[in-house]
């Protein structure tokens, strides 16, 4: 009797998640096995036509490795840029930490559309970077920074950098500082300490951060759409096109599911690789 009242606390959320996450995702799975139809989103009967359509056309099938690559590169860029920042905040004096934390988180406050838009202003042919370089006389013709993979990776790395810094920071902060001091007392120089103590101990954070950024990057819509124009078609963009513009639901679902599974495989491989090295 008492137990029932306590369960009332979690009941609404449980129903919410089941009804609006679990069931819908099952619907997507089922949808990917329906037959395509003209004039309607989907037809009756079981079919793998959606999958066939995806894998048989290069335009679509090749977007998969391209999207995976984009995600991996973005992850790496975020790692390279984010690690020094995380290290800095972790070792900074308390007064500064709040401010630095704020700077890292500030992009999140601003909305993804605004941020992506900002990148178009920066990277465009008449944008900030090109105009500045021209005015300084360093280049004559504008550099193609936008509407290509370079711009997309840059923008994605910017958007998701906080998601790399935060786990890294958490991992660095939970590491016992006494371990570093012990290493120094045993005669290791600062760089050795970093290489053989700090870095391995922050591995969990590196792992979480990379996985998080990877998944976010490949699922991103607005940023590749705005910064990539219509030239960089990630699988996610193709999925949304198929579903919203073309009403081809089985096809779109099949693509989405394939994307999710591929991402899962990449993440698993990554986790396996980094786990072996860690232990």
């Amino acid at each position, binding site marked *: 009797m008492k137990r029932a009242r*306590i*369960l009332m*606390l*979690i009941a*609404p*959320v*449980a129903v*919410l*998640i089941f009804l*609006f*996450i679990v069931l*819908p*995702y099952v619907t*997507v799975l089922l949808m990917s096995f329906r037959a395509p139809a003209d004039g309607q*989103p989907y037809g009756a009967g079981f079919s793998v036509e959606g999958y066939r359509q995806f894998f048989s056309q290069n335009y679509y099938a090749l977007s998969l490795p391209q999207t995976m690559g984009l995600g991996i590169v973005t992850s790496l860029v975020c790692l390279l*840029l*984010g690690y*020094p920042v995380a290290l800095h905040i972790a070792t900074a004096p308390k007064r500064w930490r*709040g401010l630095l934390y704020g*700077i*890292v988180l*500030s*992009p*999140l*406050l*601003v*909305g*993804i*559309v*605004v*941020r992506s*838009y*900002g990148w*178009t*202003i920066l990277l*465009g042919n*008449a*944008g900030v970077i090109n*105009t*500045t370089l021209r005015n300084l006389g360093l280049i004559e013709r504008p550099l193609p920074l936008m509407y290509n993979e370079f711009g997309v990776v840059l923008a994605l790395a*910017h958007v998701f*950098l906080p998601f790399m810094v935060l786990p890294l920071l958490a991992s660095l902060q939970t590491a016992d500082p006494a371990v570093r001091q012990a290493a120094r007392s045993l005669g290791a120089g*600062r*760089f050795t300490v970093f290489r053989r103590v700090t870095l391995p101990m922050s591995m969990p954070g590196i792992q979480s951060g990379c996985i998080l950024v990877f*998944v976010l990057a*490949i*699922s991103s*819509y*607005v940023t590749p759409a*705005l910064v990539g124009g219509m030239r960089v078609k990630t699988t*996610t963009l193709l*999925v*949304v096109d198929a*579903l*919203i513009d073309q009403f081809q*639901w089985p096809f*779109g*679902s099949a693509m*989405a599911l394939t994307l*999710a599974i591929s991402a899962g495989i990449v993440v698993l491989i990554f986790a396996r690789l980094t786990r072996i090295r860690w232990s």
Partner: protein
Amino acid sequence: MGLVTPLLSLLRALVYVFLLAPIVVVVLASLNAGNFLTFPPQGLSLRWFWTFLNNDVFIDAIVYSLILAALATAVSLVLGTMAALYFVRHARREAEVVRIGVLLPLILPEILTAIALLFFFYEIGIGTQYKIALFTGHVLMTLPFVFLNVTTSLQGRDDAVELAARTLGASRMTAFRRITLPLIAPGMATGGVFAFIISFDTFGVSFILKGTGSAPLPIQLYDYLRFNFTPEAAAVSTVSILLTLVLVTLSNMLFGRD
């Protein structure tokens, strides 16, 4: 090490610049007196703000986003706090399942969740009508943030305080009202602010589920940006940034934070 440290510092500084650059650029672009998004700006002016204020579409969109965010946050606060209370106080073996369940909207790709919701609502006959799907999507996206914040503030605390209140004569309701609630209020406030900002700025869910009629601000902005290049969009963006800043500052002042 003589060269490494200054190089690292330079890299770090560049990253901080990198983080702030697009935002700064947008704000500056909004003050551009000229017609195009050129840089450097052709003089400073507020004219694009006036244009935007007269643009019903954008005003509608901001109001729409604000209302949507407020409603979604309200629902998330109630549901998320209840879930947090259950998770910290009462969940035993199912604790991990509960946690992952509530965080699912965060773990799963937003676009995929939006698509799944679209299919689901279509299957049950509602589709994108009445904005139910949109509202559900927003509640789902904001729920994890309330949950995370409230659980953090609950976990740092001794749960015997409520039992103590009971031994002193307080009923369950009274103990909750006078002891638990004041102590989780900061967590709820932070969660609420996060939730509001997330809802206000989220794109994926709104894009897929918006249906016809008015749309939230991020969608409106996106539509506009695809084909227009005047700084008006920058002005709208700047207002959006300002709104968020005001919200965060207010919450910091009222509730204090890490």
